[in-house]
């Protein structure tokens, strides 16, 4: 206990202020990067643009979407998407435009087709298989518990998992 309570309070306040400034600084940087000054017609169009570019994958930084990526190509593609929007193209048409050039890879939501069946329904199939195993096991145990036990000696078969 070296500090007096008032000193400590002062120090906390300074720390708090510094933290706030730091956060403000970082958020402003993130903000500045996200903004690409595009002349949107109205707010609705901007919202649509943001939603659409979030669903499209950047090809350079492959784990980023077009909305967030700082890659040069991502910026070009954002401009392309913007121009297509100005031409009155629908979201589907814009997606198709990019798929025609860069394959389904650009879509974060891959379409359901022969090669993606496993991707779409594989987890569900595994879940159902697991559920089936659980149901079968539980039923079998239930039946075993109901069955009159002839001898109560522990069996050495080791089959009792």
């Amino acid at each position, binding site marked *: 206990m070296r500090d007096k309570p008032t000193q400590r309070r002062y120090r906390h306040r300074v720390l708090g202020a510094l933290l706030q400034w730091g956060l403000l600084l970082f958020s402003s940087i993130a903000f500045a990067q996200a903004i690409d000054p595009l002349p949107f017609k109205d707010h609705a169009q901007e919202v649509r643009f943001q939603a659409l570019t979030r669903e499209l994958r950047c090809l350079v930084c492959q784990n980023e979407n077009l909305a967030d990526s700082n890659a*040069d190509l991502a910026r070009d*593609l954002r401009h392309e998407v913007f121009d297509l929007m100005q031409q009155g193209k629908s979201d589907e048409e814009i997606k198709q435009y990019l798929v*025609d*050039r860069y*394959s389904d890879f650009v879509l974060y939501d891959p379409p359901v087709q022969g090669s993606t069946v496993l991707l779409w329904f594989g987890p569900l199939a595994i879940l159902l298989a697991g559920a089936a195993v659980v149901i079968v096991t539980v039923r079998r145990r239930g039946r075993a518990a109901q069955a009159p036990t002839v001898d109560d000696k522990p069996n050495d078969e080791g089959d009792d998992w």
Partner: protein
Amino acid sequence: MSRLLPFFGFLLLVVLFGFGIWWNTQHDQREVPSPLINKPAPAFALPKLDDPSQTVSRDTLLGKPYLINVFASWCIACGEEHPVLMTQGKSIGVPIIGYNYKDAPDDAKAWLAQHGNPYDLVIADQEGRTAIDFGVYGAPESFLVDGKGVIRYKRIGPLTPEAIEKELKPAIAALAKEPAP
């Protein structure tokens, strides 16, 4: 038997894991296969690098196969590829068209002057708009276009002597066997 079941389950997971590792070493995970292969090359019209008043279009190049090689002076991997094109470019038997991608013309000219020019013709796409039509997402990339203007082969990343021997030359040889357009 049922006592061994968990073990077999585990074994299955190990095999899957091993397969995953093997599979990922077999191919470049960043490579995105182009949907344009065996489709007509996008119609383009781009100025020549050394004379912007002249434009080159897909239609003026029809008739003979050619290789489009996307490069830029800022692209490091292009610098690795360049000596390969300088030494082996002539041996592939089709003209190589340099596609200068998002580059300042002066930088591109200086780069070619310094390292040599393996191209029969250089076109410039400063904006990178046409490159989007080609599905270019990085340089270097190479497209083999046949006499009918159809893209037959694409290489993403630098052309290496191995890729030229094993992929590009067989693709060109296959073109030569086809009846002329």
